[in-house]
């Protein structure tokens, strides 16, 4: 197991460049939305943050599946780190969504919106992952139990994404539908640049956190050996 974090710095540089460029495009290039006005600019940060949260949870579930499939315990730490990152991006999704809801709908939260409620359930489900994980002593049993739990949660991702498309919505807009993308070309390019930057940021943080956790584990082993 290598302690070198090769991908982290490269991803961090890409994230910085793409996010800086993306934010410049949001405020100086993308047109103001005719319907929502200036407040629609929150879309360019809220949706990429939410998609990054989904990507981190899905990555955590994939690593959990690899653990159950191969029995290699290194996937346990990778799954845990990905879910840790997904939870941070989940908090950001809820906060930026609440700010957008307040300016667009006049309320911070709407219990009638299915996508919001399903995302909250997904977030709380993965928050409970940490309680489960730390209630079991470290070892193969904890790794397997955490992996099974992480896999159950991933089912909520397509439900959350498709909720407004299948069940319909009262307030929450659906930009990506079967009819295409509900925005202009310049808006879509801007969105893609910020999304790429946010995904790079998410995976840069994932690699950095993973390297730190591995170093921590190695130091604990060394301390035990020297004691």
């Amino acid at each position: 197991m290598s302690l070198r974090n090769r991908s982290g710095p490269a991803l961090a540089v890409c994230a910085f460049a793409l996010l800086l460029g993306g934010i410049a495009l949001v405020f100086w290039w993308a047109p103001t939305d005719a319907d929502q006005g200036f407040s629609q600019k929150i879309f360019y940060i809220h949706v990429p943050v939410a998609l990054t949260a989904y990507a981190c949870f899905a990555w955590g579930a994939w690593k959990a599946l690899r653990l159950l499939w191969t029995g290699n315990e290194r996937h346990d730490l990778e799954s845990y780190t990905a879910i840790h990152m997904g939870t941070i991006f989940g908090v950001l999704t809820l906060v930026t969504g609440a700010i957008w809801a307040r300016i667009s709908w006049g309320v911070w939260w709407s219990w009638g919106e299915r996508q919001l409620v399903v995302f909250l359930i997904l977030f709380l489900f993965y928050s409970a992952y940490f309680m489960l994980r730390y209630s079991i002593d470290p070892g193969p049993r904890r790794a397997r139990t955490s992996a099974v739990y992480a896999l159950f949660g991933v089912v909520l991702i397509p439900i959350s994404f498709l909720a407004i498309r299948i069940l319909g919505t009262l307030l929450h807009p659906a930009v990506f539908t079967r009819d295409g993308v509900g925005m202009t070309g310049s808006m879509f390019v801007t969105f893609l640049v910020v999304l790429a930057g946010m995904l790079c940021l998410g995976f840069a943080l994932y690699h950095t956190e993973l390297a730190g956790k591995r170093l921590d584990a190695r130091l604990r082993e060394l301390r035990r050996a020297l004691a």
Partner: protein
Amino acid sequence: MTTSEKYVTAAYLVVLAVVLLYVVIYSFKMARLSQEIAELAELARARADRNPEREPEQAPVA
């Protein structure tokens, strides 16, 4: 600044603040790990001083 502009600024600043908070927390973690490495190096040195006749082991190349 209009109300819309204030809310948009707040949304972007929240994301920036969380990333900065993460960097601050991580720098504390790195400081703690550096401290631990220094302590372990000191412990290994003290052990080597107690057993001077023993040949030092070759450090594994990463």
